[in-house]
């Protein structure tokens, strides 16, 4: 938590405009709320005993027919929407974060190897990357989910769905990491300090880890923020389409899917609030990520 709290001052020191600082704070608050969901949610939406159908489809507390027990209303099962959203946000962020972590690990490693060694290693990795890149994220993710469901009957359950979703999203995301790191590695490998390290006689793994990796990390961090936003969106889309998190443990996307059925009959809150939360979260992360990318882009620096 301390690092989370320290982050805003870091942005100020880096010279971020107000909008970015606000966005960073908003993002941090949302992430904190989501992580602390178990503690701050009024109800536990995953506990089947805690909600009853009789409470279904109640409007938010601040409207005419609202029940003060349920701040943002209830869904079709009688679950408190606010609690469901908090847990849902947690799931969305966890899956998004997990996918980014997995993709980054695979991508950075392969990118380093491809960029440093070149030749056949590079050609192989890039060929695979090209084939994967021919397909959009959604498609690959859908395929992986679909195949997983066909092979494992338990794939659709709450235990396995997150794992499968993480893999499904990461299978496309790693390519971008690999390409960026490969390009940066190739630039660094051509630089004289790497040649110097080779002449000194240091072994390749040591050069890659000790010398090159620290110098290629900054684009990785920048991509990660933007990728996190994209991963959360992808998970939401998959859940909306029905192949993501199930209704028993819904993510924000699943909630919107449920709400979509009711939108035409005037029950607007089930879809609206989760949608708002999703957009605000992703927007905040994107604002920060955008600014990071512009800030660390060497070409945009003022020329003397």
């Amino acid at each position, binding site marked *: 938590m301390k690092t989370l709290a320290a982050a805003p001052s870091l942005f100020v020191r880096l010279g971020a405009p107000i909008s970015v600082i606000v966005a960073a704070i908003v993002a941090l608050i949302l992430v904190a709320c989501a992580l602390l969901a178990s503690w701050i949610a009024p109800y536990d939406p995953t506990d089947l005993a805690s909600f009853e159908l009789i409470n279904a489809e109640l409007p938010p507390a601040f409207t005419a027919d609202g029940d003060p027990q349920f701040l943002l209303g209830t869904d079709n099962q009688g679950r408190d929407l606010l609690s469901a959203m908090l847990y849902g946000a947690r799931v969305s962020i966890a899956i998004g974060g997990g996918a980014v972590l997995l993709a980054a690990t695979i991508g950075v490693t392969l990118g380093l190897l491809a960029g440093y060694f070149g030749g056949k290693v590079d050609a192989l990795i890039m060929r695979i990357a090209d084939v994967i890149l021919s397909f959009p994220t959604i498609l690959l993710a859908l395929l992986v989910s679909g195949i997983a469901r066909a092979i494992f009957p338990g794939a659709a359950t709450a235990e396995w769905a997150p794992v499968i979703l993480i893999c499904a999203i990461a299978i496309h995301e790693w390519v971008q990491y690999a390409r960026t790191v490969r390009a940066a590695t190739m630039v660094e490998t051509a*630089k*004289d*300090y790497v040649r*110097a*390290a080779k*002449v000194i*006689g*240091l072994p390749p793994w040591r050069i890659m880890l000790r010398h090159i990796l620290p110098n290629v990390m900054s684009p990785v961090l920048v991509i990660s923020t933007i990728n996190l936003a994209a991963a959360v969106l992808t998970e939401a889309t998959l859940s909306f389409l029905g192949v993501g998190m199930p209704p028993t443990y819904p993510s924000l996307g699943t909630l919107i899917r449920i709400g979509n059925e009711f939108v035409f009959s005037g029950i607007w809150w089930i879809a609206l609030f989760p949608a708002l939360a999703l957009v605000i979260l992703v927007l905040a992360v994107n604002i920060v990520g955008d600014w990071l990318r512009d800030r660390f882009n060497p070409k945009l620096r003022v020329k003397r």
Partner: protein
Amino acid sequence: MNVQSTPVLAIDSLRVEYPLANGSVFTAVENASLVIRPGEIHALVGESGAGKTTIGNTVMGLLEKPGRIAAGTIHIEGKRFDAARGSAEGIVLGRDVGAVFQDPMTSLNPLFTIESQLTEAMRFHLRLDKAAARARALELLESVGIPEPRRRLKAYPHQLSGGQRQRVVIAAALSCNPKLVVADEPTTALDVSVQAQILKLLRDLADSRGIGILLVTHNMGVVAQIADRVTIMHRGKVVETGTTEEVLRRPKAAYAKALIGAVPRTDRRLDRFPVLGDEGKGRAEQARAELRAKAERSDIPAEEAPILTVENLCVDYTTSGWLPGSKGHRFRAVDGVSFSVRSGEVFGLVGESGCGKTTIANVVSGLVRPTSGRVLYRGQSVAGEGATRRVGPLRQAIQMIFQDPYSSLNSRMRIGSILSEPILFYRLAGSRAEAESDVARLIEAVGLEAEAAERFPHAFSGGQRQRLSIARALGARPKLIVCDEPTSSLDVSVQAQILNLLKDLRDATGLTLLLISHDLAVVRQMCDRVAVMRQGQLLEQADSETLFDAPQHSYTKELLSLVPTLDRIRGETKAA
């Protein structure tokens, strides 16, 4: 020459400032004045940061914000330059003032033909129609010496060579008959032979068309060859000005004297380069003595046999074909080169870009594998036939320093870590503490303070970084150091210091140096023996004095004649 006395360019007490974010002001140019008459080439010389480029940009009206003219005046053809508008009344940039930039590769738009880029300005400024513009473009191409101009019009920039591209750039600058041309380092990116041609072209144009040229450059040799007048700048101030002969032969200001003195000469070999400023001699000498002591302890007795022998070395580069697995073109970078280097000498490999000298450096230092032939270190094969993997003492013995001081140190590591890496890797120190003190000695031996170990590379200037690179190379206790263009990216005065340092280190520790350079003057000053290369082949090798005073091969003679030096100054009358 016409009698018109209005100067093409008159700068009077110019002051250019950049307001900074924190409220203070950076003065790029202070109180600069110069005058250019029609048909005159005026060279504006200085090292990086001198302010010469700023003046060039200002005259062209391309001064980048937030820079502004704070004081003084500029008159172009007698018309006053309005700072607020960024141009002079009635003077149109592109029509009355032409510009030539440094890098012809990036000055031309890769997506448009030569014709379109040549005719653009004409059609706008002179309102010519397509046919008339094309006819003029043809004339221009001819006047700048491009063969087969009709074919070249339809071509794209990437289809021309570097020299041809720069000619096109000059043609474009001349397209609307300007009276003033601002040329910013027009030959720096070109090979020596091409440089000579472009310089001659500029001189001819000035003579035949009466154009005034403001030539911004850092190369004194270029100045000597074609400039009529020179202005030397240092940190924004004009230090000296006058005719080329006056300034180069009889400089008055201390900085000017030092600058001109630091330029390596091809006619005579000096013991050391005269330099400005204290080189921290005392401590450095002591540190070097310590280094020598350490080296001798682990040394074997000096031998007469050569320390390095290159035998019939061949290196081919193959570009991969279109489909995986197929072979592409084969390019022979090094073709049957043989030479040997004696222990303790400085051996120079010299040639123009693409001659293969860098490839040889890479093979000797173990970065590239040769296709055939071999390299022997003290009789043992280290590359090519019979070579085993270089480990331990063999690896240690040959180290390298590189051209670009800005990329040769890992910007994320402290100097102390960078320098201690080879020491720790080869276990040359008993303990970490000993390694640290070794690092301190190394830093002092190259003339810097031991506290440098705590800092990061970006805190140091180019020259200082190059010193630290040398310190790193020394850390592995090598016997031979390959120096790949170690001073090409440095200012002239800094170059002098680094070359002095290398000489001092060689004298103190008995190192052998293999010096790779394209700069004949540097090679003359530094090397005991020299080999000349062209297109992968070694054409001539001899003692330095012999090679420079009595070259045998026609190429060597040609190369020597093309180098712009201070020996032949334009307009100078030699004493009888």
